[in-house]
């Protein structure tokens, strides 16, 4: 087995260690906040208080039923393309290092999503369909 040349790899041992410390600290902080909020916060439970707020009136019927939400589709599509943005932006940061291979892979990824977009478009997913 050949020894790894110095500088060929990043000193990942130390990096992972700081990441672990950071994660633990973050989780401790979040846990303490949640605990303090739960412990210090004043709570008075009553049927009125746990009732949904609907302009001061007792709501009618259940909120859990199948309900057309045209905006939902748009929101989901947005999510997909938003994630695409996350990939493309990180790729932009290491564009030179990735070279042509990265370019090709990214292009394939974008083309694939574009094809998906055209498919959605053709299927009428972008039309605001009123129920």
């Amino acid at each position, binding site marked *: 087995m050949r020894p790894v040349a110095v500088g060929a790899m990043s000193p990942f041992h130390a990096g992972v260690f700081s990441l672990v410390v950071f994660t633990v600290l973050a989780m401790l902080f979040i846990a303490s906040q949640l605990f303090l909020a739960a*412990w210090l916060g*004043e709570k008075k439970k009553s049927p*009125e*208080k746990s009732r949904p707020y609907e302009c*001061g*009136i*007792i709501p*009618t019927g259940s909120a859990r039923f199948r309900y057309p939400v045209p*905006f939902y589709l748009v929101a989901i599509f947005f999510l997909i393309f938003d994630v695409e943005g996350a990939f493309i932006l990180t790729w932009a940061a290491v564009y030179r290092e990735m070279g042509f291979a990265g370019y090709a892979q990214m292009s394939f990824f974008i083309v694939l999503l574009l094809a998906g977009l055209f498919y959605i478009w053709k299927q009428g997913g972008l039309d605001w369909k009123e129920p």
Partner: protein
Amino acid sequence: MERAVEANRFLSIADRVINWSRKYSLWPMFFGLSCCFVEEAAAFTSRYDLARFGAEVLRPSPRQADLLIVSGTVFKKIAPVVLRLYEQMAEPKWVISMGSCSNSGGMYDVYSVVQGVDQIIPVDVYVPGCPPRPEALLEGLVMLQEKVCTERPSRKIFHLGGGSQGTERPVLEVGATKSEDPRGPGYEGVPIRGTSLLPGRLQWGSRSDIMWTPSARRMEFSDADLSLAAEVEERFAGRARRELHSSDMLTFEVDRGSVKDVLRFLKNEAKTKYKRLDDLTAIDESARRNRIWSEGMAEATSDVGAVCSFSKKERGRYPDFTVVYQLLSFDAARRVRIKSGLDAEGGAPVSTASVTDIWPSANWYEREVFDLFGIGFTGHPSLRRILMPEWWEGHPLRKDYPGRATEMAPYTFEDARKRQPLDALVVTALDAKAPAGEKEFLLNIGPHHVSTHGLLRCIAALSGEKIKSLDLEIGYHHRGTEKIGERQSWHQYIPYTDRNDYLAGSSLEFSYVTAVETVADIGVPERAQAVRVLLAELYRLSNHLVWLGTFAHDVGAMGPNFYTFVERERILDIIELITGGRLHAEFLRIGGLAADLPDGWKKAVDDLTAIFPRRLLEYEKLLRRNPIFLARTKGIGKISLEDAMDWGVSGPNLRACGLAWDLRKKMPYSGYDHYEFEVPTATEGDCYARYLVRVEEMRQSVRIIEQVARNMPSGRYVTDDYRYAIPRRGEMLQDIETLIHHFINVTRGMKIPVGEAYGATEVPRGEHGYYVVSDGLGSAYRMRVRGPGFANIQTLPLMATGESIADLISIIGSMDVILPDIDR
């Protein structure tokens, strides 16, 4: 021992830190009931800037709020909602009761109003005033902050037992811990002043009878009126009769069975077509004094009878109820009144035929008559209560119904728990709409909602974001102002008129005094007329500025709100300089004004008119070409001109459909015919058209104000007909005759001769009218308030069905609704 002291030191430091943080980060809820909320809102704008005190942003939901400012009148119909909102707020929470109504019922000691919010929720700080000025609310907030500093929250926070935080006062109980008597405890046996005037009590002992007045005004009928009278009397011979004398408009008495035919004839076939149903109401005639006389009940009091102003032949003319229809002809600019007597026959419920198939707008009017008088309408699609809650017993405008809340059982915490507003599903079922399908979701928008501009409840059946159908539930703001009109003396009623539309102030007094002056034929000096116009136009500007700011806010533009309130405060400054009041000027008097114009009024007005058009242009730039604003308003909420006329829509909402109908031009009053101005119109009938019309109206109002200020006539500010007016002080001190008039008119009040009249003016929201009926006493026999909002808002389902839920907010905003003129 040492340890306990240590702990206490730690806790007291913690207390101090917590209280300091809390007092500067109070989160008030966006919750307004009536007039007071307008002053509360003003306290948040730039001049008063409540943010300085650390209570910056109004939270629209109770979950995000810990301060409830109960601003306005607590109605029995809304009280369960108030209680629920309070209970849904975050802990710890505090309550400020703002204004006399919320403190104690205030001037609204009337059947529909809770006499103090402390009967249902605990209160920390009371802010007095009607309404309190914004500064008073600032003071109230500072007092609450001081109260917060006295609390010991840390023991509670650290679960150590004991300690205190939030409102911990008990809810008060009438009779045990609080007295409902406005005079304080200890007066239980003494009747409240004015009790003898309450309806239902026989008033043959009234000293008004000893006072002589000329008879009511008799108008000269025009040829057109007479020819219409001939036309009707010929067509309905024996069934419709013209009343020989009238103070204000042609009046027919029509037999019960023929009313519908006569109305249909007047709407569709007569030479002049009376297209609009202005108003539909009723009068309970059972307490008419000559009727009581005729029944022989008063024979015992013969000494008073001797001076009674009724002649024998007048007695016994009245039926049990009279239903009154008032129609308007747009083409001829004339009105006509149809009266139809109804008698209860053998204990059967009184009823008459519904006219909903002639005018769709009659739907709500008939429900209102049914609610308040108990008169049935056969053929009405869904006859049920409209203003009073469903559980209400009795019909408040009947003469035998007690007017005061203090005469009824007090409203308690248990009532607020029990008397819930109707379930949305029940309302839609009662309105005979198709039951909500499986895909439809019933959503309540209001009564507590930022964008309903008051206590309006819209019940939308939603499918997706589309509104499939819309029901309205009103009456959450019913202040019984018509019943109050029957017990207040003619002058004492003036303050109530302002409150019937708390953004238009004097404009409403204007309608009311016009009506009374018409019955009694009281001349108004030119100077007083001009000042009335000045005030009405100033209030129009101030109202439209509030509208512009809030409408823009409704469609997502925060900016204009901050600016328009700056100019509004300038206008209120002028109004305050002249009248001494802000929202409620209470400055007009029957026959003139309360006082002359003060020094310096002209400069203040001129300064305003010099800068206003430029400022308006600036505000408009924020909106007019804003693509979001256009997308939210253009083509949204359309109503056609035919529909608008048929439904009785008035004011800018009607003019936005293309009809230049403005009372100031079409039926000029108070010298409006001397001023040059235009009546702006638009044709589309959508939200954008309504916006254009109102903005242009502001320009025209400035023109009128300029002209009034330039040509202000000199002379008296109040008539010298002191039989009806409150005399000028200088004159009162000079001769005994005037002193007597002064004494009579400010104590028991003057007498208005037997008669009736409708007086209306063009207020910012449309045609606001008062139909006053006098029985020759010191107060009205019937006080009918015709609010423009009642007719306007009835078209909301028409405009909003099929639009999206976001559009509903645009539409309500563009209609400029205000609840007191809808629910009254």
